[in-house]
């Protein structure tokens, strides 16, 4: 086993492993930089926000998105690792969906990038399948008793993506302006989109 020795900080451990891989021809600095660059600049929640804004402004797109998420997001160029089969769930005034991966941290990378700290944390992963209303309330999202709460645990290669409810008072905004309102948290279902 590769038990972590106390005293070796993670940055040094990373450097050590990288140098061992490079020497054996199993990694190279250019590929490492490329992988990092993809998730720092090209793939992130701005992708999902474009999908949401388009669905809010184009009813036919929204219909395609809800019936075949994988194909509909591919129309906008979004596909790749951790996005093999996308299912889109719509949040409304009466139904609130929220997504977790209790076994690891599965997340729809092509649409949202790599998961944020809170999503990977043991508190979220343990609690949201048992007390979702309390979890959402702790982050300021209070749901009334008339709202059906649906929690989705990502245990297969299906990736769930939330289409949040369009906030009131945004009728005059352009698609691009709408995309600017959409947060990653709302696309996982732990918050609503504010106008």
């Amino acid at each position: 086993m590769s038990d972590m020795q106390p005293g070796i900080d993670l940055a040094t451990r990373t450097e050590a492993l990288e140098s061992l891989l490079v020497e054996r021809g199993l990694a190279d600095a250019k590929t490492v930089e490329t992988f990092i660059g993809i998730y720092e600049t090209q793939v992130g929640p701005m992708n999902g926000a474009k999908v949401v804004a388009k669905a809010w402004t184009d009813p036919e797109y929204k219909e395609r998105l809800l019936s075949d998420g994988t194909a509909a997001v591919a129309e906008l160029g979004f596909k790749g690792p951790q996005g093999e089969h996308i299912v889109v769930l719509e949040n409304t005034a009466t139904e609130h969906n929220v997504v977790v991966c209790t076994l690891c941290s599965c997340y729809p990378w092509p649409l949202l990038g790599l998961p944020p700290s809170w999503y990977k944390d043991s508190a979220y992963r343990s609690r949201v399948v048992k007390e979702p209303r309390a979890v959402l309330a702790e982050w300021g999202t209070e749901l009334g008793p008339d709202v059906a709460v649906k929690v989705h645990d990502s245990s297969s290669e299906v990736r769930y993506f939330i289409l949040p409810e369009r906030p009131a008072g945004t009728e005059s905004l352009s698609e691009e302006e709408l995309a600017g309102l959409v947060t990653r948290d709302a696309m996982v279902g732990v918050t609503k989109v504010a106008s």
Partner: protein
Amino acid sequence: MDGVHDMGGRTELFGPLKPLDRDEPAFKEPWEGRAFAITLLANRAATASNLHAFRHALERVPEQQYLANYYGRWLGSAEILLQDSGLLAPGAVEARAANLRGGSVEEPADPEPHKPSMETAGGGNMRTVDAPRAFAVGDRVTAVGRPDAGHTRLTGYVRGRTGTVTALRPAQVLPDTAAHFVGESPEHVYSVEFDSHDLWGPDGEQFTLTIDCFESYLETSA
């Protein structure tokens, strides 16, 4: 397998949520990005990028290391995968780390590589299964027991519980066998919805919990 990774409903892990930070970057520190990338490359070298073997390696990272840091957990899995495939000797990373910090430790020689392999029907995890589905939308199903050892995607908290099939999902490579290089053994997959009170008792919050289950995880409820 049982372990700290199977977190759903485990009250000993309950605690305050981390704050939502709209501007949180993909990598908070430079080493995290490098750990992410080299873990992907390590798994490519060790297992031809077997996603299930990677997850199973994460599950075998010692608990303290697993809980301490997400990318620290990734590094741990990379080292396990490299050792399992004979690409790196135990202790190689520690020795190199010591030398990077000015030590002069003798580094262990590389072992004989013995990379596991498995026949694959193609890229990704979606597959076609010709056999008819065992269950239909609306069926009442019970999540059956699972072995304590080995990889599975059946969570502990639904084990033995009864729910309703709400959606049919594409057939997929079975993680339980693929993680161990035994075969892809693709199966039909179902979304199964459980009532919160059937999972946690009558006193808790009212909601539904939906989770994807491979066909062999389910049996018809009496």
